[in-house]
């Protein structure tokens, strides 16, 4: 069990929070840029940042542990590997750096390298140097290096943002399988709510160093405690409106054209933009003075400038 007590992630904010990360669980830390995600990772890793707070692993304060010996490994946004070591040496590096402390003999190291290289599908590249690998392979290597350490805490700080879309999705699915097998405490930061659903057993929402909400991804999605929390879990964003001087919000996927069934409230939309990829479409426009976006299945015959009657089911409205 990893515990954060009085975590203060940003100098600009006063916010402090506590959180507990359970072993064998993947916690997706979701937040916009500058929300304190990286600072959270650094706090846990014990590396210099402006974050403050107590980090307890099974009751032991990690502050008392030298970063060199911290039971934590980390994958970074940039592809971090040793440029003049081969793939095999790179994977072995956290094991070899510790060998002086009487950890592992050569055979065990070789076996471990082989196992990880197979898991991450880089076993055919073992004698290459990192700069000879593609971006996706370099990040696979970085993940293998992090796993090699077999630390009870694994931090992944937006590991896939520098990869292209398809590679990202593929690696994400692999990662889920890979991480679920272990009894590791996994903290995965992201700014994409989809990561919370594909990877997360739990999601922790951060905004400006503040903990907005935490829980199972679907729970947080269904029962957001604040507009900001709902906004973070929505893609591309939420649609706000006011009813009886209360702030209400609707998700893009809950809006429909009025010809559909199950509608008990309607809105007028002045369409400003329309995008589609064939399987789904996004209609952007103005509703009651606010910018809205509606997501629909398939293609729609809509052009910018047109007036559109849209509707939603009252049960999908979230009130704050």
């Amino acid at each position, binding site marked *: 069990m990893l515990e954060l007590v009085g975590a203060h992630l940003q100098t600009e904010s006063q916010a402090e929070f506590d959180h507990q990360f359970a072993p064998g669980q993947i916690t997706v830390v979701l937040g916009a840029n500058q929300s304190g995600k990286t600072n959270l990772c*650094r706090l846990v*890793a014990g*590396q210099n940042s402006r974050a403050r707070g107590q980090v307890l692993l099974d009751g032991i304060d990690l502050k008392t542990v030298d*970063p*060199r*010996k*911290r039971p*934590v*490994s*980390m994958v*970074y*946004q*940039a592809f*971090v590997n*040793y*440029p*003049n*070591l081969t793939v095999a040496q790179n994977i072995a*590096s*956290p094991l070899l*750096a*510790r060998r002086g*402390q009487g950890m592992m003999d050569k055979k065990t190291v070789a076996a471990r390298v082989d196992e990880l290289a197979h898991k991450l599908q880089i076993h055919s590249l073992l004698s290459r140097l990192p700069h000879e690998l593609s971006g996706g392979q370099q990040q696979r290597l*970085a993940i293998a*290096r992090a796993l090699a*350490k077999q630390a009870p805490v694994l931090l992944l700080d937006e590991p896939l943002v520098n990869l292209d879309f398809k590679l990202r999705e593929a690696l994400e699915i692999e990662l889920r399988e890979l991480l679920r097998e272990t009894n590791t405490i996994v903290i995965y930061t992201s700014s994409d709510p989809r990561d919370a659903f594909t990877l997360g057993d739990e999601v922790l929402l951060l905004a400006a160093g503040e903990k907005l909400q935490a829980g199972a991804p679907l729970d947080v999605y269904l029962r957001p405690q604040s507009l900001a929390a709902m906004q973070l879990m929505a893609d591309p964003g939420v649609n706000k409106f006011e009813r009886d001087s209360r702030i209400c919000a609707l998700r893009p996927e809950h809006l429909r054209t009025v010809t559909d069934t199950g509608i008990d409230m309607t809105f007028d939309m002045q369409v400003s933009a329309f995008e589609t990829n064939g399987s789904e479409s996004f209609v952007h426009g103005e509703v009651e003075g606010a910018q809205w976006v509606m997501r629909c299945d398939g293609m729609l015959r809509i052009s910018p400038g047109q007036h559109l009657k849209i509707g939603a089911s009252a049960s999908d409205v979230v009130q704050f």
Partner: protein
Amino acid sequence: MSSFRPQNNRAWLGVLPVVLIVAFSAVIPLMTVVNYSVQDILDFNTRFFVGLQWYEQTLNDPRFIEAFLRQVAFSLTILTIQIPLGIWVAKGIPQNSRMTPLILVVLAMPLLIPWNVVGTIWQIFARPDIGLLGVTINALGITYNYTSDPLHAWITLVMMDVWHWTSLVALLAFAGLTSIPQPFYQAAELDGANRWQMFRYVELPRLRGVLIIAVLLRLMDSFMIYTEPFVLTGGGPGNATTLLSQHLATMAVGQFDLGPAAAFSVIYFLFILLFCWLFYSSVVARNED
């Protein structure tokens, strides 16, 4: 098609100044030297073609060989001191401190001092009768006189060059160090890397580029060094600190042996070229393995 041609030719006018400057500053003087090196010049109207005679003579001249060996010893010595020392100094410079610009300016100062002034500074600094360094060392009970003892002269010469040029290596290495992103250090730290491993596997590979430049610059510059030893020791005591350029100057200006001096210059030039090429191609070749 034809309407484009005048425009294309006009572009040559743009290149012309560079061609002229390079011709007057490099090609013509170099060719003049090559021309002198195959002639025996008695006066401007009396000259004989002698072929490779001056080259043979130079290469068999024991004074040339001695100066050459001294030169190699000097260059290797200052390289083995300046490169590690420069890296060490660079690692000591704080990267994001308010002091950083000040430190860099102070560090760059030796590089801004005219070379003959550097020579003069050390000539006085090291004097055993009035120089701070010379007097201090003698006061410690160590006999030190760089004008009479060849070893002392060498040590002083090397110290002067280290003082003068280590800053260059340090500044280059510092630039290389600042370009290493923090996550590389952090990852190595979490891997449990100690300071030496951090240097060996994180910093050194990324300093390669700037260090190659540093070694090349220092190799070429030290091979051509003239002013500072000329002012400091004048090549003495005896010929103990006579390096290649000084030997050349003696031949060309002192004895006015233009033919042999020209042959010497060409050999000298080819040696520098050869060393740099050997060094560069060996590191680049290793890179491609």
